């Protein structure tokens, strides 16, 4: 079941968390993890626990903020939302990823053996 799942590259989880919060507004940790799993179509190998390291990292950088609150079904949970600086950072990082994946795509599109000619 997990053989074909993607290992997360360093730093990608942070970006996913930022994007998720930007898109969904305020969410708790479990919500963020589920959301990422859903969006990725269960293709990402995510131990849900790892997202808390990412959350604290983003918090310390001032890109997201956190607050204890109550969930829709009345459970106490910590809710995260993206800050203004977080949005700025997100747009930068997203642009960077776009470029990188385009380049990677082009490089990987080179047919094998094409350098010989």
């Amino acid at each position, binding site marked *: 079941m997990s053989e074909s799942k993607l290992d997360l590259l360093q730093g990608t989880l942070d970006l996913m968390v930022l994007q998720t919060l930007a898109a969904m507004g305020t969410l708790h*940790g479990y919500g963020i993890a589920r959301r990422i799993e859903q969006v990725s179509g269960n293709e990402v190998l995510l131990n849900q626990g790892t997202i808390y390291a990412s959350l604290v990292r983003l918090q310390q950088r001032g890109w997201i903020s956190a607050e204890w609150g109550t969930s829709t079904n009345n459970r106490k949970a910590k809710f995260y939302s993206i800050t203004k600086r977080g949005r700025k950072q997100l747009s930068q990082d997203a642009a960077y990823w776009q470029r990188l994946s385009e380049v990677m795509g082009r490089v990987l599109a080179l047919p094998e053996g094409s350098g010989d000619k």
Partner: protein
Amino acid sequence: MSSRLLRLIRRLRSFFRVTEQDRDLDAEMSAHLELAIEENLQRGLSQDEARRQALIHFGGSQQAKENHREARSLPLLETLLQDFRFALRMLRRSPGFALLAIFCLTLGIGANAAVFSWMEGLLFRPYPMVANQERLVALTGSTKADRTGLSWPDFLDLQRNCKLFDAFFVSKITGTTLSIGDRAQVVTGSIVSANYFNTLGIHPILGRAFDPEEDVGRSAHPVTVISYQLWKERFGGDPQIIGKTQRMDGVIHTIIGVAPEGFYGTFVGWAMKFWVPASMEDTFEAGGYKLEDRGERWIESYGRLKAGVTLEQAQQEVSAVAKRLDADYPATNRGHGIQLWPLWQTPFNNAGNLLPTLETMLVVVVFVLLIACANVGNLLLVRSFARRHEITVRVAVGAGRKRLLQQLLIEGLVLSAIGAIGGLLIARWCSHLLVLLLPVRNGNAMHLPGEMDWRVMALSIAVCLLATLLFALVPAIQTSKIDLAGTLRSEMAGVARGRGKSWVRSTLVVVQVSLCFILLVGAGLLLESLQKIRSDSPGFSTDGVLVTAVNLVASGYDAEHAKSFQEELIDRIQALPGVESVAFARQTPLGYGTFSSAPIAVEGYQPAPDEQPSADYNQVGPGYFATVGIPLVSGREFTRSDNETAAPVAIINETLAARYWPGKNPVGERLQAKGKWMQIVGIAKTSKYYSMREQPKPFFYVPRRQDFSISGALTIRTRLRPEIFAAAMSRELKAMDQNLALYEVISLQEQVDRSTSAQKVAVTLTGTLGGLALVLAAIGLYGVMSYTVSQSTRELGLRMALGANSSGLFRLVISRGLVLTISGIFLGAALAVGLTRLLGYLLYKVSPYDLRAFGYAFLVLTLVSLIACFLPAWRATRVDPIVALRYE
């Protein structure tokens, strides 16, 4: 930038609030699981299955916590703390190693800190409580040949004309005798210009400082400011002290102020007990009233530069003034310049004396520290071999090189931090050590405190960090070359690899030996100098001559009374059993005071235009030359008939004779000094007058009766021991005048020895530190040799199995040790040839390349290294070949 800072602050905060953050995370994680379980339940899973799925998806909770912690905290700080704890654990586990390393470092750093504190307290900031000491400079007069004092009128001209100075002030050391019961207490004080206290920023705690007009008039202002210590000890801290009086040098002085505690005046070497204004010069100084005489160069003075003015600029300004004075007052100032000195080169107090010694010490302690570092480096190295397995495993499981280096450095830092604490304690304890090496005069010990201020601390800590880098880097280099596979594959310890790696240790030993050799050569040269200087003839007999003094001035005698008193005293002493002869003199050679000095004229001699003949002279009583043992080469001694009413006569020394009457016998010729023509009646051999190092000086003697001063010294030729004579003489004194007290009685040899005490300090310190270095180097050599032997057990066993006998093995080990030693000695000798010249001033009639010193150092080091190698070599002969070959 600010966001980085913010993050750092958050991280630091979370670093110290670990538990709170952990609790927070725990709560968050359990909320997460509950949310997950709830969702799973809603999807229709059973309670157990819902929980199981939630846990699986969450992953390792410990790992999550760990990641969280790492992300939120400072990894560097945390690993530093880890390494620190680990280092402490490692040290506790091998206490022998730790103690030895700390011992070496404590000595090394302690010696450095002690010398720093002396340099700070004696040379750079010698005057506690004085403001802006870094801008103080010392002033002296200078002629082509010599250094002189300044005259008071010249000093006033400097004050008026120099724009680059905040102020000038005078501080001329003097002394007086305070009688306390039947004991005379000699106290040191200063004649100062009236601006003294205000310029230094010292405010009396009681009463006032001097007023400007107190500089003026002959003995017109008998007022004094006393030191805190004198106030406490002699006056019992009397709060009503201001306005009370104290007789000093025969004059009743009014006490107008008490200096604050901790202010010792401005003379390196002595703590001042009282201060009197310049107008009282006549009372305290020999030679009459000098405040209006430009030719009397008696004062010692300082100036304080304005902020930002360099010594060179100030020197130019002062020289310009001196040049004007030269032109305006040719009679007194022809050929006289004025020179500025940085405080640490002050020539008229002990700073100038101690400077070469302390400079040498600085080099010596750096060497000792290097030797200590080499030792610790070696110890760490040996231990890093013992820990090879541990380190290899750590590298194998993925410890980065950086992390390993960091850990080694931290271990080193822990060692040197403990060493530094010990070292600073030693330095504190040593801060009054210098005084112990110097003679006590008239019951007064010198005042030479080291100063442990923040500069000394900072420098010591810097040295400590540097040392850490030096010795901790040695095993680090080695570690960074660890061959993982090789070490893990086999723990084989054998000759081949032993050799490959032992070069670092061998190099360290060679360096140690060479540094040690240089120190031993230095100590040897200084010791030889001391022996030479102490055995050299000063030109008078040091054997069987005593000197002492009776202070008549303090007891209020006038000249007439003093004359008759002294005559009677001479007769009484002469009558004592065991006394051969006795004579008065104003000064004794190599004593503490200064001789009178005057411009001279010689009948029939025309001085060159820029030449101003002058000479020092002494006023001596009948029989002085016989008593002190200065041979007369021609003519006669002074007698009792050379008195006030007789024709003025003089005895000159051979140097003076040779300079102005070359090739002639000047007996019967005439010499003029202080406006008085004297007939030369004798020629004395040139002796030493101020110091054993001086060049032959022109000098003359006049009869005491023809140039009388109340104060004077007694010289006694006797076989009696000083204390026996002192007891007898005290009885005679008491019989004549109950109020009189005797100064200390010492032999002339003692007086000569005291004059060379700087030499003795240098010898004692280099000798001690050289011995220390020797011990350290021996430990280093022993360590390396015994480690080599223990690591080459296999080789030794093989040799034995192949027929080598034990004496052969013994020789093998010894010769390996000797090769190291001899290489070190050769390296050291090459360096020493370049370095010993720096001893310059401290050497006396000893060449810096003196073969004996080099030879002794060679012998001592070779011998010590033989001893150090003996035990390892003996152990080598005890190797059992069977065991050795099975060893692996």
